[in-house]
């Protein structure tokens, strides 16, 4: 009770606004929704000494952790916090736990695959691999392609220092995002270093590994704090990693350290908004019409869509910006066999909207949103950093 977050169940006015914003409720009626799974059931869990789980808690498996409920609440309740915390207490069947454990530790498999990308990509395409994955409950869908790419970073010492935290997806699947972000930061006058941190823990906590995430979050926070003490700003390009550092760590490991971290994390384009002179110059437009899909976790950071104006000014003639839809994949969620149809159903309105817009390019900050959109529409998806790096002034 001494934990401030624990008390926010008292703020729930039962208005049900969160319920209307939950993408899972729309696609999967048996899901009781964020109001009930969160603050409402929390009262009943407390009434059971917070020890035994409720029968209905099994439905927590269907929460995608998209955070739309947190944003929707007019009174500051964070239903997703209760969902994450209580997922950790679920007693799922062994096979489900095993499958979720595999998906939660995506960083390990990525590290291995990242050493031998060609072999890993080939193996992931084999029908034998797919069969084996199907047997443990992993959906039959394309996996991200692994790529290896050396990153060029200037060694010059500068006053402005940025610690760039790329996260798993950019590190193992699209290293060109890392190079683009580094180039943009260096053009803005930053001395850049890559964060010696692998996974932020989001896939673990959304798969119910609360305690393991807490240990990882503690370890990561200590690393970040060392850099912060030396004057580094922490910069992210992955919306989920950014949100973990800005918000989830504070819930998982409440205290002074996570507060300091939170105050020193910037999304790349959020940071650029504070720069006086931006290092961009006009060049040939990349597309006539592009569709910006705002990832749920970027929306949840509450920083608006800082890349949108730059993209409009420099890269495309017409930019359709939409933050209404969730793509449905929600990290590892859409890779689970029983959740795959829900993930696709949640994403369908987005896919339809993209197709209807006749845009030839989709822009999105999130790696798994990208996988889902390509899967659902067949249209190319790029990270805004990747696009905007093309417009950096050549003279520098």
């Amino acid at each position, binding site marked *: *009770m*001494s934990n401030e977050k624990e*008390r926010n*169940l*008292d*703020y*729930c*006015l*039962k*208005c*049900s606004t969160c319920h209307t914003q939950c993408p899972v409720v729309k696609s999967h009626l048996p899901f*009781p929704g964020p*109001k*009930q799974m969160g603050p*409402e059931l*929390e*009262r*009943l869990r*407390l*009434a059971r*000494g917070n020890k035994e789980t*409720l*029968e*209905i808690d099994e439905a927590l498996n269907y929460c995608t952790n998209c955070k739309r409920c947190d944003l929707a609440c007019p*009174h500051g309740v964070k239903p997703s916090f209760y969902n994450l915390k209580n997922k950790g207490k679920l007693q799922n069947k062994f096979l489900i736990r095993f499958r979720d454990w595999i998906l939660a530790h995506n960083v390990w498999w990525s590290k291995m695959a990242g050493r031998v990308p060609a072999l890993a990509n080939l193996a992931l395409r084999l029908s034998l691999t797919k069969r084996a994955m199907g047997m443990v409950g992993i959906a039959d869908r394309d996996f991200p392609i692994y790529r290896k790419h050396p990153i060029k970073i200037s060694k010059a010492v500068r006053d402005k220092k940025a610690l760039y935290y790329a996260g798993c997806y950019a590190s193992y699947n699209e290293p060109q995002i890392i190079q683009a972000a580094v180039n943009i930061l260096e053009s803005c006058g930053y001395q850049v270093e890559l964060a010696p941190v692998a996974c932020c823990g989001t896939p673990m906590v959304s798969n119910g590994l609360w305690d393991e995430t807490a240990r990882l979050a503690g370890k990561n926070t200590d690393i970040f704090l060392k850099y912060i003490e030396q004057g580094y700003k922490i910069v992210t390009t992955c919306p989920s990693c950014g949100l973990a550092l800005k918000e989830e760590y504070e819930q998982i490991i409440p205290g002074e350290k996570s507060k300091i971290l939170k105050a020193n994390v910037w999304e790349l384009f959020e940071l650029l908004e504070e720069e006086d002179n931006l290092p961009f110059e006009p060049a040939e437009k990349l597309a006539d019409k592009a569709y910006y899909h705002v990832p749920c976790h970027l929306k949840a950071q509450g920083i608006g869509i800082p890349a949108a104006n730059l993209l409009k000014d420099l890269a495309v003639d017409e930019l359709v910006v939409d933050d209404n839809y969730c793509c449905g994949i929600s990290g590892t969620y859409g890779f689970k066999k029983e959740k795959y149809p829900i993930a696709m159903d949640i994403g369908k309105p987005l896919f339809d909207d993209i197709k209807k817009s006749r845009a030839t390019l989709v822009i999105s900050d999130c790696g798994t949103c990208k996988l889902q959109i390509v899967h659902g529409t067949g249209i190319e998806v790029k990270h805004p950093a990747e696009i905007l790096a093309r417009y950096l002034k050549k003279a520098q």
Partner: protein
Amino acid sequence: MTNKVQVVVIGGGATGTGILRDLALRGIDCLLVEQNDLATGTSGRFHGLLHSGARYVVKDLHSAVECIQENKIIKEIAPDCVEDTGGMFIATKNDDLSYVDKWLEGCQRAGINTQEVSPREILREEPALTPDIVKAYLVPDAAVDGFTLAAANALAAVKLGAQVKTYTKVIGFKKEKNKICGVYLKDKYTGQEDLVSCDYVINASGAWAGQIAALAGQVINITPDKGVLVIFNHRITNRVLNHLRPPGDGDIFVPHGSVTVFGTTSKMTDNPEDNEASREEVLALLDEGTHLIPELKDIRLIRAFAGVRPLYQPDGGEVGREATRDFSIIDHQALTGLEGMISVVGGKLTTYRLMAKAAVDKVAPFLGNDKPCITHKERIYAPVPKNTGKDAHYLCQCERVTKKMLDQAVQNKERFSLSDVRRLTRLGMGPCQGTFCTFRAGAYYHETRGLSPEAANKLLKDHIEERWKGSKAILWGQQAQEAQLTRGIYLGLLNLERLDSDSHEI
């Protein structure tokens, strides 16, 4: 109904319904009359604590002994009504520790098991407690639902052939020579008056016992003693929490289902219907409570209410906290020569069964009945079993009340209010205080019971107004905002002020 019974029981609280069941189990033809719904007096307006007796061991050992005996029996016979949370007594560094020894000695004499736990251990299990704990003991306190208890007793009696008339007021007694031989009744809804002949009357009307006795020309010296209670949005501790000090204001917290009931105060009043808490009383209570729960003032309150203790002092003895919690059977024949009536006064909900036994033991010989009391041997059952979690069609989400429970609550009832339904199901007892379930329940009964729109509207309006009454003293913080949302929905969206249904009866 037949207009002749052997015994008329007046008062539908725990004692009255307990007496009805005891009579019925002994094969005595009986009728219970209650001016409102069951458990709408003190039995529904207390902290919901099934005493272990530990609270009374120092000053009132006799009450304490009765409490611990009954505590064990009620847990056995009424598991539907009791949550065996266990209780704890906490002494802080600011308390007089010499009381602890007296208390321990009293517990031992009363036969109440106490188990000492280290402050560290209790804090780990109950993190909301003050870190200033010096001594902590576990006792067999429990939480009891007074509404369900009265309803379960009544249900058991009805199954044995007893009758229950709620919303029926006693307006007089029929006497022949100096003997009561009938009771005049008035139906509160229809206004219709009726006479029921009987051999005996048991007055178990609690805080109203003086008023009822007066109708028969008798004087009973009841000193109604008002106690204020508040309800918090969620559980603060998982055990009943008592302050280990001489009984005073604001020293009992009872975890009750999903909420916590906290109280009480003690103040003499002249009106048994004085059941509203004032803001000042609530604030004073909260000040007291922070000695045990430092963060108490930050926890959301959802309601404040008051109950009236029917304390009885035969010869104008002590009042308030000093008054005994013992009960008395007043034999009016012995006092004034009036035959055919006894009054059961004083006591506590925890000892209701014992009071019923004593009353029926007194009356049965006059009726030529020598059967023994067996109320401690047979189980009683809640008329509306709790939702076990599989049915997810909730009409009230805060308290998980299902359509099925709403059906069960009005079974065999010609007329009902949503408050009657609430007492059996907990509909509207959660944080939103009826905001989101009242319109659903009104509509549901309109559909399933064929209520006219006007009648359904009246259900709705009465319930919203009743819920509002309990919010008035605590309108700050989150609950003030909840009330604004309620206003927005019922006054703004549904235009409740201009409903044309007040003139319609259900």
